């Protein structure tokens, strides 16, 4: 097991390098350092000297990938790519283009993101499983049919409508919760109720249907028929046997999502004014802040790979037949 983990971690390194290269290429094909300087320096009276100074300070006056003028290892090392991207591996994110420390920002913003993402995840999982179990239990009846139709309908509504509509009804019309904003500590509850609700409702459609399929597949197996033949009550069959076995593919499918909870939901955070990592990323894209963008991409990738690793490990843990390669 340990050897497997080590091997997978090592395998992740070329992936991270590849990601770095792609992000770098994409970003610098779009923005030259001149453009970034102008973005940061503002509109009025921006002189070419100010731009040069800005670039020199941040190390953007070097060549992008290959420095022919430098000597030896400097050819690769004295470039923007090396300076900016390689340090990521040491988790040294440096400063954003407006000189704020990125690692500090990430630390402070992780809290709100998690405070939003974890409840959505847990509550969503619980609701979806319950709903799916209900539909599977009442399979082939009208309840099931209407349940499926409701799920498909809910799946067909864009999340934007949920957000706009939810905010309008619950915050504006009924004055139940604050429209947007965030406060740390216990006060966070009143700000999170609405986004969590919307996140859960938005995810019910797709999630419940998928779990329902899994449950139904499970219920088609022989051991369920045996259990029924033995005379067990339907509820016992569902809860003691089907649920436990169907949870395996559910959980393993869900584990991969857990690390990504840190990243937060980009749009929900933006709309509800929650200062999390998701809105940090969106702001950086719109402000063309490369330093922040590459830091967030790097973190996202690391978390994704960690998620994949966790999924594989959880397969082994729950299903003894699976052997890791």
């Amino acid at each position, binding site marked *: 097991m340990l050897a497997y983990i080590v091997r997978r971690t090592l395998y992740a390194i070329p992936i991270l390098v590849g990601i770095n290269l792609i992000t770098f290429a994409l970003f610098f094909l779009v923005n030259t350092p001149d453009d970034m300087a102008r973005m940061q320096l503002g*509109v009025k*009276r921006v002189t070419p000297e100010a731009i040069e100074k800005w670039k020199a300070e941040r190390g953007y006056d070097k060549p992008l990938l290959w420095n022919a003028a430098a000597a030896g290892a400097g050819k690769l090392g004295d470039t923007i790519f090396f300076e900016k991207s390689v340090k990521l591996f040491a988790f040294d994110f440096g400063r954003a283009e407006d*000189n704020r420390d990125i690692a500090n920002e990430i630390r402070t913003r992780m809290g709100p993101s998690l405070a939003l993402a974890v409840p959505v995840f847990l509550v969503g999982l619980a609701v979806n499983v319950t709903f799916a179990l209900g539909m599977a239990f009442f399979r082939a009846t009208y309840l099931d049919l209407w349940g499926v139709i409701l799920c498909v309908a809910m799946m067909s509504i864009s999340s934007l409508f949920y957000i706009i509509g939810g905010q309008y009804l619950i915050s504006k019309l*009924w*004055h139940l919760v*604050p429209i*947007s904003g965030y406060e740390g500590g216990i006060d966070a509850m009143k700000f999170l109720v609405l986004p969590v609700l919307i996140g859960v409702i938005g995810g019910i459609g797709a999630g419940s249907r998928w779990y329902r399929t899994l449950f139904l597949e499970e219920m088609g197996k022989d051991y369920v028929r045996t259990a029924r033949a033995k005379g067990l009550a339907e509820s016992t069959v569902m809860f003691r046997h089907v649920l436990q076995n169907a949870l395996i593919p559910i959980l393993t499918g869900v584990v991969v999502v857990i690390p990504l909870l840190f990243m937060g939901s980009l749009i929900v955070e933006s*709309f509800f004014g929650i200062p999390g990592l998701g809105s940090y990323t969106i702001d950086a894209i719109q402000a063309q802040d490369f330093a922040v963008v590459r830091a967030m991409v790097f973190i996202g990738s690391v978390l994704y790979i960690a998620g994949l690793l966790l999924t594989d490990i959880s397969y082994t843990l729950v299903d003894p037949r699976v052997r890791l390669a």
Partner: protein
Amino acid sequence: MRAILLLACLAAGCADVWNDPYAAADRGANILYSAFTERPKHLDPVQSYTEDEARFTQQVYEPPLQYHYLKRPYELVPLTALEVPKAVEVQGGRYTVYTIRLRRGTRYQPHPAFVAENHVLAPARIARLRTPYELPAATRELTADDYIYEIKRLASPRLHSPILGLMSEYIVGLGEFAERLRKFDTRRQDWLDLRKHRLEGVEKVDDYTYRVKLKGRYPQFVYWLAMPFFAPVPWEAERFFHQPGMAEKNFTLDWWPVGTGAYMLTENNPNARMELVRNPNFRGEPYPAEGEPGDAAAGLLADAGKTMPFVERVVFSREKESIPYWNKFLQGYYDSSAIPSDTFDQAVRVSIGGEVGLTPEMEAKGIKLRTSPDITILYLGVNWLDDVVGGSAERTRKLRQAIAIAVDWEEFISIFLNGRGEVAHDPLAPGIFGQRTGREGLNPLTHVWEDGRAQRRPLEDARQLLAEAGYPNGRDAKSGAPLVLYLDTVGRGPGDKPRFDWWRRQFAKIAVQLEIRDTDWNRFQEKIRKGSQQLYILGWNADYPDPENFLFLLHGPQARAQSQGENTSNYVNAEFDALFERMKNIPNSPERQGIIDRMVEIVRRDAPWVGGFHPVSYGLTHAWMMNGKPNNMARNNLKYLRVDVDQRAALRREWNQPAVWPVLLILLALVASAVPAVMSYRRRERMAAKPA
């Protein structure tokens, strides 16, 4: 049982509001709530130039002068100085000297920089700090040295000041000083003590007086003295923030201003919240006793003579989206909702507000609307270097005049700004000396005076001019090809579509085809720099209320394509340039008015800007916020405001009663929908075995 108790609690709590986004502890406190949409990037007075930043810096930093809050047209009055300095010419006009005398007894806000021990803190100690104010603080008196230090900072090689280039032309020795510093400053990790370097043009006379020497005459210099660029900065602050470990925690002068103003910035989280707290060491300033006629009736002089500031704390929350911002304002959680716009080719960012007047619902809530024209102009410019529309040939001039008539700015203002704007008849702005209003201010080439107001000329005139320009019915007279013009603009997103459609329609009225080339901001600026645009939209926000600050935008030598100046249309006219040189340095007088009239006439005829408008900024304030008057030049207005806390609490409670019944209904419905499921379950359990 527990559920019933919970419901009872909910019912009892009905007297309270649930959707209050602020901490419960703050209810009933003397706090002003406001919001900001764009995050401020720099709060260092050397660099800060945008309106979002001015909102914070101008409450903390006090330059020698300020604009009178109430009087119009805008008037300079002393702030930390004793009087507005007069220019004294020496050496027969070769230099001008301003002597600035300061008030005594002005003290800085309490700040840890003034405690000597804080200059040598251990990095571990710094790493544990959340804000610099956790350290012991002290204060000291303001002296002339601090003003001189800030002027020297303009030239510091470690900072970028956008006005360094401009000021180097005027302040004696500033350019050389900057050069010298650049050569000297090789060891970046050491603190650059500017006190050790001498700047020739600025001289200290005594602790409360200093002199600035300018080359030639520059009467607009006094306006710059009202901007934070010339506010005092204590050297101790620079030294304090320079310690290792400070930058990692974002403790820099760029984020934590240190000043003598009415407020100090104690919380700076530009992604969420910024908080200003009353400066306990503020020397106190009396509320102005005079104003415009009409101010007394509006209740703006009720606090005359009382010591400012009135509000203890000001909390700014970040609102990126317009819907939450507007709704929270309507619910009473923001005391005012003015959204400044430092961006140009964007007439409106948020279409808030129904009309120029208030809707009955808003009036019923006691919301007040105040409008004041911005000292801003947004114009449709023509690139003088373009062959089709630019240049001084008669043909292109007629084409431009035709376009000037066809583009219906009145309609633009009505649709996209809800009437919050005034059509521009000349390149100046309202409130600027030299601008004529009403019948005299009319642009005779595009409007006529009828029925007591300016009416746009009929489209027939435009078509006639177009035909004279060689494009009858929008077709080239010789080749028959349709005339296609290109509008270069900045695309901001899906909200642009209505605007683009409207633009195309304006030109379609005279049968000219318009192609819109929208790009992002960087590409747009690049086009302007290279001079490759044809028609474009830009604007200018006044630095100070002087006509030179507008007319220089059409000054030939400042053409963007040649010299990176602010003349984006690259307009050149020898007579205009000569008149500009004459009028730029003389004081306001009938002679100056005459020159400006002539210049305006030239510009109207040549039409390098085919029309434009002046946005009118509106301020919506709630009934409990007093003394709010829109002021486009003075951004240090927070000290004048007063909040009736009790009235606010009462109204908020009234407007935000939570409607619990829908939730109960929904819960009931959910429970009801579960009933058939439960019944079906029971029935199934009792049934005999059934195939799966």
